[in-house]
């Protein structure tokens, strides 16, 4: 891997340096399918970049990390370019100082790959309306993460619903895919009318109310959210006319599926790494209408 530092630079010089590095290595920028912009704080940088590079193994990308530093310093742009073995694509970490902090799009926009999709990911704090954000507006897909906030994760979903635009998604929705897939598989055999249900998770886990909203909307039954010891989501219990259908997972790896009149079965249901969630997000870049319905249903019923 080649790392190259540029201090007090411009987007033009970064582009030129990329081209220079590629020519030196004899590897042209072929096969990159999208640009992933990661907007985060310095403290999130390592984990976010790691997840993004791993996701890039499935979706070779140019990854642009935007870190907004102190805005009371003189205007400066520092860049760190990485190209080579561990990453199939290219990585540039941008650090913005001074007034430039408010004009990050002017740096990002010339660095986007031409004529391919752009995805923005905020691993932590995100703008209220991602699609109106100056960087968010450059992207087809805008990924937030309610769980990435230090507090108020569940409340932030209400904000997401209010400011929703096509192409918005949240990683707390992607975390649910294995659960939803298993629930859908359980419903492939007719189960009859669901009367009520409960989703249990560790306290303040934003995925739980989303799952409850999705179930409630699809099944037309009230679904409560309750706290448990965790980790993450621990169970879904749905009461049916003839008993209870439930999925319980206490060790974050193996779940038990129970349904009336049938033996209990163990199903692998491991919690997934951020890189896997991100790879799932990048697999389809059209807008996720089912997420839209679920998050809006949640916002309508939220009584925080």
């Amino acid at each position, binding site marked *: 891997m080649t790392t190259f530092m540029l201090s007090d630079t411009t987007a033009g010089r970064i582009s030129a340096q990329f081209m220079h590095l590629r020519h030196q290595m004899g590897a042209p920028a072929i096969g990159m399918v999208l640009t992933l912009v990661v907007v985060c704080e310095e403290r999130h940088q390592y984990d976010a970049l790691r997840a993004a590079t791993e996701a890039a193994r499935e979706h070779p990308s140019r990854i642009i990390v935007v870190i907004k530093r102190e805005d009371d310093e003189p205007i400066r742009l520092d860049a760190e370019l990485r190209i080579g073995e561990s990453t199939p694509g290219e990585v540039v970490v941008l650090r913005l100082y001074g007034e430039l902090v408010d004009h990050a799009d002017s740096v990002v926009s010339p660095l986007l790959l031409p004529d391919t999709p752009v995805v923005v990911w905020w691993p932590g704090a995100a703008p209220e309306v991602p699609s109106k954000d100056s960087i968010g507006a450059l992207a087809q897909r805008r990924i937030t993460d309610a769980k990435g906030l230090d507090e108020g994760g569940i409340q932030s979903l209400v904000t997401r619903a209010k400011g929703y635009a096509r192409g918005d998604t949240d990683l707390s929705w992607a975390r649910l895919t294995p659960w939803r*897939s298993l629930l859908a598989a359980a*419903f492939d055999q007719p189960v009859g009318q669901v009367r009520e249900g409960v989703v249990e998770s560790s306290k303040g886990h934003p995925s739980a109310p989303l799952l409850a909203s999705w179930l409630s909307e699809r099944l037309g039954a009230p679904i409560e959210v309750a706290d448990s010891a965790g980790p993450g989501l621990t169970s879904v219990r749905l009461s049916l006319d003839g008993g209870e259908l439930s999925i319980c997972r206490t060790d974050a790896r193996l779940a038990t599926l129970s349904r009336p009149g049938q033996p209990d079965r163990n199903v692998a249901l491991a919690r997934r790494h951020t890189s896997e969630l991100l790879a799932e997000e990048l697999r389809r870049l059209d807008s996720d209408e089912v997420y839209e319905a679920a998050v809006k249903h949640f916002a309508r019923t939220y009584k925080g």
Partner: protein
Amino acid sequence: MTDPAAPAEEAATVATSAAGTSTTMEVLAANPLRDPRDKRLPRVAGPCVMVLFGVTGDLAKRKLLPAIYDLGNRGLLPPGFSLVGFARRDWKDQDFAQLTHDAVKAHARTPFREEVWKQLREGIHFVPGEFNDDGAFDALAMALNEIDETRGTGGNYAFYLSVPPKFFPVVVEQLKRTGLSDAPEGSWRRVVIEKPFGHDLRSAHELNEITTSAFPESSIFRIDHYLGKETVQNIMALRFANNLYEPIWNRSFVDHVQITMAEDIGIGGRAGYYDGIGAARDVIQNHLLQLLALVAMEDPTSFDASALRREKEKVLKAVRLPADLGLNTARGQYLAGWQGGEKVVGYLQEDGISSASTTETYAAIKLEIANRRWAGVPFYLRTGKRLGRRVTEVAVVFQRAPHLPFSADDTEILGHNALVIRVQPDEGITVRFGSKVPGTAMEVRDVSMDFAYGESFLESSPEAYERLLLDVMIGDPPLFPHQREVELSWKILDPIEEFWATQGQPEGYESGSWGPESADAMMARDGRVWRRL
């Protein structure tokens, strides 16, 4: 022997397959948690049991068992999924589980995860016995019944016959006798068979009689693992999702097409199977003719099984053999030599091969397709063992530009434009075209433009068997050849085999080379050359 394309049978098959899909559709419609817009939810099979005959075989260990684990790891196996092994071994469940465990550890594509293994392990059962032992099959039927009770698999069974075809009659007869082939209302029974589907039209037909005596055509899944490969499916995306290639995909622009499957290995331990079968029956009849069908067919009305198979059948029916088989086919047998730095023996010196064997290890044939799109465009098919390199590809070679406004010197080394679909290894697409050599002189030379699956969709492409096993469990048949396609392929190949049978010993070619001289001469007569691979 009935005509494989008899309309009555066709109508019946279409009706049953339509009935099959409609029940699946109803289930989906009845499930409030499914939504066609919900693209995150994967296609997951319903509860079922996979019964594997021939668990100790190479295919089971290297491909099938690891593929089942990989499906589980991707969350695509239904809760309660059970795997039953049947073999002539004095084994208990745990012995089969151990074999599966070892096979998964050695060959699975996804990382080993304890919880996935635990889920799979709970559903693993083993039934010992011989194929002609009634008691063993009664035990199998009882075991399956019990699995339905304890695992909730609802009487849905897929029988995978990973055994030599000579055992098909007895296994199918046993399944029929024990009633395992009859699906009760609301459940399904499917049978999966592997190539070879016979060794000529007649035997393919007989084999089919045996399977259809117990299972309806819509429940028979013939695996040609090539069709499960991403690149092969991508042929359809390339042709029908783009506007760039279809306008030139015809006789006005295409000069000829070369379809190649080259192997660098010899016959290895397959002497018993290979001798008397040969390269053409082993590879051309199934893989290469299927590739030809996908490359040459018209656009199907949709990608469901009946529409797709209809187009493939149409083009296979339009295939014409050359009038003079002697001049337009070639066959060879590898001699001792050096392959990739190793000294190797010739075919006749391999263990278990008679020194007078006339089996070919290299076959090349020229075919034409008698329709408006392809008339006059030759399709050259070749396959061989112990060639220089392992490569499978389809090369569509275009005509030269009608007029070159350059001097003859400038374009001296300019070849034909070509679009190459690389099936394996290094899956991808190459486009070859002329480009100016940098410098002050106007010199034009061939360059390649590459699309590699490995770069753009690195780890997402599943192994062919994963896709096919999932399709069997879901009941989705487009990627499986229909019996009519099998019989049409034999109709193409049978006259060639009959001709070759009169020609004595195949021409020898040195191991590690690119085949016999007669193959090159066959191309030279048409003013063409094989692509150097």
